[in-house]
């Protein structure tokens, strides 16, 4: 017995390719970002932004560096998922769409690695 609908069988277009994974991870990262961003903005703006030593000393502490790295990874992930939907909606044509999606993924990945690396430099050197 097939579980496919008669219409689905006739159209023969298969599944959309993935299920609820994208939608769900967008929510998971959104929920995680609520406390992470609230903490970061309030904590950051309580410190002297113009002072190199002050900023370095603050961001390099273990209990600041770790949540900051969590924030960076979650932010990059959430951002990539969101930009993906925007590209899928507004860029037409398979080639152009794929190229933009690739670019977005590379930029997000590179930015996340650079930001995490920077925090590790502050914490470990």
């Amino acid at each position, binding site marked *: 017995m097939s579980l496919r609908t008669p219409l689905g069988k006739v159209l023969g277009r298969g599944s959309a390719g993935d299920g609820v994974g994208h939608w769900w991870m967008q*929510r998971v990262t*959104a*929920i995680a970002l*609520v406390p992470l*961003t609230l903490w970061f*903005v309030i904590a*950051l*703006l*309580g*410190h*002297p*932004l*113009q*002072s*190199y*030593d*002050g*900023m*370095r000393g603050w*961001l390099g502490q273990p209990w600041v560096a770790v949540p900051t790295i969590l924030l*960076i990874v979650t*932010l*990059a992930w959430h*951002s990539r998922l*969101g*930009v993906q939907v*925007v590209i899928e909606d507004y860029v037409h044509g398979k080639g152009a769409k794929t190229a933009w999606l690739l670019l977005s993924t590379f*930029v997000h990945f590179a*930015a*996340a690695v*650079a*930001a995490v*690396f*920077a*925090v590790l*430099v*502050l914490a470990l050197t």
Partner: protein
Amino acid sequence: MNPRPLSPHLGVYKFMYTMTLSILHRLTGVAATVGFLLFTWWLMALASGSAAYAAAMRGLSTPLVKLLLVGFTFSFVYHFCNGIRHLVWDTGRALERAQARRGAVVVVVAAVALTALVVWMGCTALARGAP
């Protein structure tokens, strides 16, 4: 062009201000992505040493960039507030028309007020320990 039928586009609907909030959620999300890239650049400058950090902070202090930073702040804060509205909707609550409209007003007022608060806190943090 794909010959498959299209659903009616935006033009067939009567305008409601809730539509503006919906499209703003997307726009501010994309703007926040640019803000994230700027944040990464700032962190890299901080990790590169005191001269690089001082240069980055000088670059961020020009009037035009400051205006841009206020824009990023608003984008971020708005996306945050409206994102919480979306999360509430995801639980199946507050989906009635009147509630959606009330939520829209709350989000806009909160976003403007919180943007002002963050900008003020930012100015204070910039004045503190200025060289």
